[in-house]
């Protein structure tokens, strides 16, 4: 009886510990959105990622400072996983500026950064789909500074700074600061989900 009691306590602590590390934040798999990747191919987000771990973020390619930091941090994690032979992870950077960020712009953005697109996609889509998806993630984005260069209007966004870890069932399990990513924490969490 004493041993059974200890066993129950142990199991309770174990499960409590697991749920504390990875509480299910949001199930984004309840809706799927048809997006376009950098090659103009359709992507059903997030259904097409089912069964894989997904590291996702929201960016816009006209962002001069923060979004490139987030993209680069994800690129670094992608490289680390490749070195560790961990293959069940996909990366997605979804544009919240779909009017300017066409597939070809996204492709150029990836190309000039020498990105490996084997398991990294840049996604765009129609504004309605993108903003419904953003709402599902509770990601905040607002119009920011606007200026005029000659006859060209230039605008920026005020936005959250997040990278999301999504499990194999399409549930957000953790969030990280995108531009100041704790890469070791993300890698450790990915490993935990993989196991």
């Amino acid at each position, binding site marked *: 009886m004493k041993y059974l009691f200890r066993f129950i306590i142990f199991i309770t602590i174990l499960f409590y510990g697991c749920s504390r590390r990875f509480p299910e934040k949001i199930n984004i798999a309840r809706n799927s959105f048809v997006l376009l990747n950098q090659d103009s191919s359709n992507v059903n987000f997030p259904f097409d990622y089912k069964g894989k771990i997904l590291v996702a973020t929201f960016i816009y390619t006209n*962002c001069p*400072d923060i979004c490139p930091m987030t993209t680069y941090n994800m690129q670094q994690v992608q490289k680390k996983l490749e070195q560790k032979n961990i293959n069940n992870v996909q990366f997605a950077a979804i544009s919240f500026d779909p009017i300017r960020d066409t597939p070809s712009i996204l492709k150029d953005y990836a190309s*000039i*950064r*020498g990105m490996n697109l084997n398991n990294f996609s840049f996604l765009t889509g129609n504004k309605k789909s993108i903003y419904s998806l953003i709402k599902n993630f509770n990601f*905040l984005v607002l119009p920011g500074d606007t200026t005029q*260069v000659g006859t060209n209007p230039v605008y920026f966004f005020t936005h959250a700074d997040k990278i999301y870890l999504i499990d194999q069932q399409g549930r957000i399990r953790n969030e990280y600061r995108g*531009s*100041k990513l704790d890469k070791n924490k993300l890698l450790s969490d990915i490993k935990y989900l993989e196991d």
Partner: protein
Amino acid sequence: MILLFSMLTLFSIHSQKVTVRHAWLRPANKGMNSALYFEVRNNSEKPETLFNVTSNIAGMIQLHESYMEKGMMKMRMVPFIVIKPHSTFVFKEGSYHIMLILLKKDLKPGSKEIFFLHFKNENNLKVIAIVGKN
């Protein structure tokens, strides 16, 4: 001879009131935006003010600051930067930067671009920045 050259170089570096190092900028495609980062040192006894940066590679160049407020990343233009005497001011990622708007050419990693820093007291300073990987 080498010693003499080294001494002259050292003298030249220290005689400059404002010096810049570690200048780099983000890769970006023509028509897009980028950012320039560097460390600027004021070696003089008086404060120095950086009020403009110019280059022919962008349609517009502004001194800018990225900052976080209530969980949101925001940007604002700053009219000038004061560098205290015998101090270094760092333009760095996620903070103060020189914003390059509407690039006139692709900025490919490894390539170099020329900028001119305009100060209140000192002469304009020519800076060569290298395009980084990110």
